[in-house]
């Protein structure tokens, strides 16, 4: 099963050289990205030189064993964390050069992030949680509420919108997190284990939403342990020990 570290994605050919910039249509370009965490005397190398290129409209599943660096990579891609070394371009812009206000705008307008640990505001109800990104986007109260309600409806939680996270089940919380990521209609959806707590029926519903978003031309990166979930994606990247182990297209989905 040890697949070679392939560079099968067509975009790889137009990857930036040392001085070059990523080509058009390349949403995510990382080059030799590393990230490590000092833990007492030792250093945990979560990412040890990751090169990924993801083009606009791609649907990519990131897989790999626990602790292989998937969430760490997602955080960097989502502009929440910065690599220790290496480069990262988002939509052709070197993220390292962006200031705080630009980063905030990027996280708010371009990226929808579903956290592995949900990260909902404990004190706010589901509706307000979903409204949050719209608040920072400056969307007016009425439109905000309408859109948040719609997003909650899409994940089947409309009747739970006045519940706080503590009053929701794990799966329901996860769906609130998905609704919050979708509500801004982000061009790039980053979902870290978005169906980890869901039964197969709800999982299918959520993945149908992702499919729809994908059909509309949005880019989706999804972390999962579940091969059935990965089947929805058009390409699978496998991580192991902070390195890309394999990067293969999904034969059943014919990419391009």
């Amino acid at each position: 099963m040890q697949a070679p570290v392939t560079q099968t994605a067509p975009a790889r050919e137009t990857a930036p050289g040392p001085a070059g910039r990523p080509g058009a249509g390349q949403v995510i370009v990382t080059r030799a990205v590393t990230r490590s965490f000092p833990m007492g005397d030792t250093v945990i190398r979560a990412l040890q030189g990751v090169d990924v290129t993801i083009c606009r409209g791609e649907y990519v599943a990131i897989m790999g064993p626990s602790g292989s660096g998937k969430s760490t990579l997602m955080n960097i891609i989502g502009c929440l964390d910065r690599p220790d070394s290496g480069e990262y371009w988002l939509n052709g812009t070197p993220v390292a050069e962006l200031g705080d206000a630009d980063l905030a705008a990027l996280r708010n307008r371009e990226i929808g992030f579903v956290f592995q640990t949900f990260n909902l505001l404990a004190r706010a109800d589901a509706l307000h949680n979903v409204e949050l990104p719209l608040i920072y986007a400056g969307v007016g109260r009425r439109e905000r509420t309408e859109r948040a309600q719609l997003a909650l409806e899409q994940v089947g939680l409309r009747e739970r919108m006045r519940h706080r996270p503590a009053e929701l089940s794990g799966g329901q919380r996860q769906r609130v997190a998905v609704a919050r990521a979708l509500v801004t209609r982000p061009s790039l959806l980053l979902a870290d284990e978005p169906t980890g707590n869901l039964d197969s029926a709800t999982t299918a519903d959520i993945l149908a939403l992702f499919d729809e978003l994908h059909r509309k031309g949005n880019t989706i990166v999804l972390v999962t342990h579940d091969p059935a979930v990965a089947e929805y994606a058009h390409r699978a990247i496998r991580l192991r020990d902070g390195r890309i182990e394999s990067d293969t297209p999904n034969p059943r989905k014919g990419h391009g």
Partner: protein
Amino acid sequence: MLFAEMILVALQSVRANLFRAFLTMLGIIIGVASVITMIAIGSGAKAAVDQQIDQLGASVLSIRSGSFMRMGVAQGGATLTIKDAEAIARDAPSVIGVVPEIAGQLQIKHGNRNENLRVAGVTANFPEIQGYTIASGKSFTKADDASRRPVAVLGSAVGGKLGTNAAAIVGQTIYIKGIAFEVLGVFEEKGSTGFRNVDEQVWIPFFTARYRVFGTEQLDSISAQMAPGSTVERSIVEIERVMRKQHQIQPGKDNDFSIADPRQFFNVREAAANIFAILLAGIASISLVVGGIGIMNIMLVTVTERTKEIGIRKALGASRRNILLQFVVEAMVLCMLGGAAGIALGAGVTTLIARIAGWNMAISPTAVLLAFCFSAAVGLFFGIWPARKAARLDPIEALRYE
């Protein structure tokens, strides 16, 4: 709208920790209440003093013998006479009227009652110049004075002291040094002014006092009324010049008389009120600073407690500025709530003091606005550092915080 969210979050946070918020606000509450009370006392005391000065009537200077005063008693041996009074009236241009006054404590008899009261012999123009208003009956006339008639006008409390009351004593007879005096009228109550209670005083015509009661030329004092528009300083210079000439005081020698502005008695009361106000200002500034530090402390705690929330908000698109503003707003909301409570408390204390002191103290809108702005400023000043701390948190580290 983002601002609305910030206020909402701030209020939620206050509600979630109501008691803690109250304790935090206590310093601000006391500080603002002190500011409100302080301003009200300052203006109330000033208003009370102004009112009493108005009651004094026209601007009047008081001339006494001796070079200085001790407890209202002239020290030194020089004497004032009616000639001095006449000279002042004649030669000091800014003086438009004088009242010479002979006075002393005397036994007053009425029926079987006996009271030791101050009796003042004055010219008939004294009510106008010294600011007395007749409550019932009338005062004596120039003619009464010239013919040395035994008539008297009483202060409002004298009737009561003599076993009857202010209205009933008019027309009755009182005895001063065995002479029967007809009571012509009673003045309105004036309240204690300075060291002497004029409500317990008896006035008789000057010449009656001079020749039939006291038998002396020596005046207790001369009241000189100043022309409208002339300054106290100018009148004092003029009177001093006339008096030095009258008393033939050589240049370089000290005056054997003193000139006083009765208003200065009130300065003492105003000063007392001012000292109280300064004390309150001290309390106010100390508690505002302490309160501000309390706010800062609790905001630091809040920022730590809500690290995760900050991480979430940043991940969803809140900029540093948004977070900074949110926590500054929260500190300010905390302070302004404290300010509002302080204004209410200050209003209560002010009403209480007004009732006890009998002052007409009003809480001015300016004071309320000032106090409110002040508490907002305290919130801004002491909230900005914790807010900066919150704004600078790294999103991913904040998210990982449990």
